[in-house]
């Protein structure tokens, strides 16, 4: 069981590798078979075909196994056209690996994502440091196709695979006075060259936070996969947050610590430029970034002569689900 003391032995170490591999093969066959039978209506997640199969990030075997068993979520997923895998994994910000949009893919491949442990601390009844494999045990993964709106006014549509953050928090039994959840990214300048730069504006490690009701919202996801496969390091492997109604920087990557607290935790971009980035950072076309407009976005991939400019939606199009969380709040003040 996950809850209780952290364990030293992981499931993949108990099962002999040969049997384990046979099992994998069996499950693979099963998944492929059922997918063929049900032709697209399969409840299990079918693998996406990629232009370049070499690009897939395999991730650890135990995770592959879980990903193959993931279900599709219709309820929360958008039917919009997906941003291709090569762009989702080849064009993003992850300043721990450099400032360029192509730096994360180029420089993150060496990140050791397994084994990975996450510390759960603060106002919970069951604090401790847990192996990610153990955290995922007993968790059913599902696919969520979400819009991702970057604060820089570009956006993507991404099929994440993960599980609700609420499920995880409940298992660690938050205390009554827990009002916020704080997250911390790995700090390891050896592996993360961006953290070695002396000219950055961010204090490492990267930290983010959510109010408890935001954290418990069913849309709030902890992702371990993308496009049916393991999350690659450049996208925040092995565990990242996805909060689709907030600007992308809220969706913190490569999480090593989840801390529940009574006080509002500091957040990295707010510390760097408080007049530009608030704690909430809800996608809001009516409130501009001080330096640029937030009323429109470029949905990627975009082309030069017919730029894919679309109007940005309040709460990134998730207003029906989340607007009530902010009832009575002046969103101009609490940007």
């Amino acid at each position: 069981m996950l809850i209780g003391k952290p364990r030293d032995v992981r499931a993949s170490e108990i099962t002999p590798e040969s049997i384990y591999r046979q099992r994998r093969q069996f499950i693979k066959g099963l998944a492929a078979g059922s997918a063929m039978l049900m032709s697209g209506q399969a409840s299990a997640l079918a693998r996406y075909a990629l232009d370049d199969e070499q690009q897939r990030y395999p991730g650890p075997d135990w995770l592959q196994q879980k990903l193959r068993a993931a279900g599709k979520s219709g309820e929360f997923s958008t039917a919009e056209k997906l941003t291709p895998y090569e762009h989702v994994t080849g064009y993003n910000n992850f300043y721990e690996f450099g400032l360029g949009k192509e730096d994360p893919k180029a420089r993150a491949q060496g990140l050791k994502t397994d084994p990975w442990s996450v510390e759960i601390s603060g106002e919970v009844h069951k604090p401790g440091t847990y192996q990610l494999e153990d955290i995922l045990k007993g968790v059913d993964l599902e696919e969520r196709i979400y819009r991702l709106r970057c604060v820089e006014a570009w956006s993507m549509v991404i099929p994440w695979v993960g599980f609700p953050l609420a499920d995880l928090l409940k298992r660690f039994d938050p205390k009554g006075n827990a009002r916020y959840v704080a997250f911390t990214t790995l700090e390891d300048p050896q592996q993360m060259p961006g953290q070695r730069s002396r000219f950055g504006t961010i204090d490492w490690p990267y930290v983010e936070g959510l109010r408890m009701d935001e954290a418990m919202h069913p849309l709030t996801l902890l992702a371990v996969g993308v496009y049916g496969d393991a999350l690659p390091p450049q996208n925040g492997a092995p565990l990242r947050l996805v909060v689709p109604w907030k600007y992308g920087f809220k969706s913190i990557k490569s999480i090593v610590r989840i801390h529940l607290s009574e006080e509002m935790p500091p957040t990295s971009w707010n510390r760097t430029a408080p007049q530009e980035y608030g704690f909430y950072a809800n996608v809001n076309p009516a409130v501009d970034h001080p330096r640029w407009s937030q009323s429109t976005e470029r949905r990627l991939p975009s082309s030069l002569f017919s730029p894919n400019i679309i109007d940005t939606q309040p709460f990134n199009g998730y207003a029906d689900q989340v607007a009530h969380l902010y009832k009575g709040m002046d969103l101009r003040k609490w940007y």
Partner: protein
Amino acid sequence: MVLSIAALHRHPVGRWCFWSLLFFGSLIPLGWISWQAVQQQLGPDPAQVVVTFLGIWALRYLWITLAVTPARRLLGVNWLQRYRRMLGLYALFYASLHLLAVATFILGWRPDLLLRELTERPYIIVGFIAWLLLLPLGTTSTQGWQKRLGKRWKKLHWLVYPISLLVLLHFAWLIRAGYLEVLIYALILAFLLGYRLYLKMR
């Protein structure tokens, strides 16, 4: 090297060769980015890549133009003087393409967006003013205008100094996560302008 180029300039063929080298060489950045765009090598957000690329080359040409005087004084490369006009016009050329790229690729010539960007975004306003100020410098860069304006020509072209500061501000205003690149260009500009101050105060 310096000597041989100076010698080259005593001959019309040498001058022509060097002019061609500089003129066509300065089109390489444009050619390169166009080729990359045609080949679809610019990733999912080519608009951003093209705009940034053209902007940085406009800045570089402005800095290079400003480097002519210090280079002559410090390195004795007087032949550079005859290319200063071309270099300055290339700064205007890349700045104009940069602006055109913003309007076409980022804003899609949507009037509402254009108006909003030009009235509400400080960094765009600063960049746009810099471009507007470059226009009269470009048009009066010919020898004819130089003669016509006489003493006033120098006064007008003194504007290049505040323009360079506006350009630096425009660039610095875009920083999100790292300031190393801007810092390097700022230090170079500090030297280029500081050297002139030093000459004046001496």
